[in-house]
């Protein structure tokens, strides 16, 4: 069955590039959210197989959104894809329950590997 991915990123460009990349890898895009708050709402509504989450976003940042999604569903698969690649962000994401952390500008191979690993 085709896996469905929810993309959460405030940048339309980033969402578009990621959508193209993920669809090229055979995934279906369940939806797109432009901030963490919408991301949490859409997760509850759409129940995607996986979420890609940016960190630096207005309204609600990615780490907060990740915490809320995991509180809602402990088995949620969330991969952080962010330009903010500092160690503190990485640790916060892992502590909050992220499966993986990929730095922007993202490379197709790394994303492909990360999603493959998430669905093993």
């Amino acid at each position, binding site marked *: 069955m085709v896996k469905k991915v929810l993309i959460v990123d405030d*940048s339309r*460009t980033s969402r*578009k590039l990621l959508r193209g990349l993920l669809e090229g890898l055979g995934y279906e895009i369940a939806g797109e959210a432009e901030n963490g708050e919408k991301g949490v709402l859409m997760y509850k509504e759409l129940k995607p197989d996986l979420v890609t989450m940016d960190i*630096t976003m207005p309204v609600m940042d990615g780490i907060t959104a990740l915490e809320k999604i995991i509180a809602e569903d402990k088995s949620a698969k969330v991969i952080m894809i962010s*330009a*903010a*690649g*500092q160690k503190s962000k990485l640790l916060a994401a892992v502590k909050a329950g992220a499966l993986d952390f990929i*730095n*922007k500008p993202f490379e197709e191979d790394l994303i492909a590997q990360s999603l493959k690993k998430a669905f093993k």
Partner: protein
Amino acid sequence: MYCKLYSSFLLDKGHISAEQYRLIFKELCSVRVKMGLIAVEMSFMTKEQADEVNRLQAVKDKRFGDIAVEKGYLTEEQVGQLLKLQGNPYMQFTQILVENDILSPEMNTEYLKEYQEENGFTDDELEIIKSGNVDLIVPILVKIEAPWYTYHTGLVIRNLIRFVSTDVSITGVERVKQYTSRHFAYQYMEGDRLVYMGFAGEGNSLLVIAENFGKEEFNGINDDAYDSICEFINCINGLLASQLDKESIDIDIQPPLFADNVDISVDDEGFYVVTVDISGNAVDIVLAIDTALSLR
């Protein structure tokens, strides 16, 4: 970058025509430098020896280096050196000039000397510029004493070359206290240091970044075009933040912003504007470190 800087110099001086300038960049996309030309340039072989090996290559179906070694014109070590230089931008550029009868090797050498003297480059600096190594070139062209500015500029240039266009060159650097622009996309980061970085441009010059990074066409600098530019800025500054993190310098990246018809000013010593030419588009990189920009 060497090719753009030097050929712009040749054009400005009237040593080449506008048509020849365009031809150079058209050829640059597909050239693979012939080993014989590099060998002559490096004084490993004479032109006559290189021509002989080229003729033999056509009939023997052997590689240039192998034939040259057989005939005793080159050593294996020299062939190794030449192989490394084949991707060298200076060599690619020289080949285009010679093969298209734009300049002879002798005239090229003379004009290169003129270029060096006019810019006050040392011999070592000229070799660095010829190498095409952006990280080493930027400090030569961006003579700002604070290493942070030089590093940040290098990061921006490298990523412009990586994601936007290989045709990028630095054309000016200025320290200013006031600056205006029609279009401005930027981001600031705060924490242990306060850092601003943005792109500014007149007309549609910023579209070269928006369209090449975002991989789509835009009808002018609209919100979607700004989004693409802002995401590119976000990626660059993320790399900066990660590097600073390794040096235990903590900065928090804020969401990028954009504005039209901005007037930027500071109360202190000023900030830097590095002008780059990206495929014929003039774009300003605005950089400020530990200086709060006031935008109106």
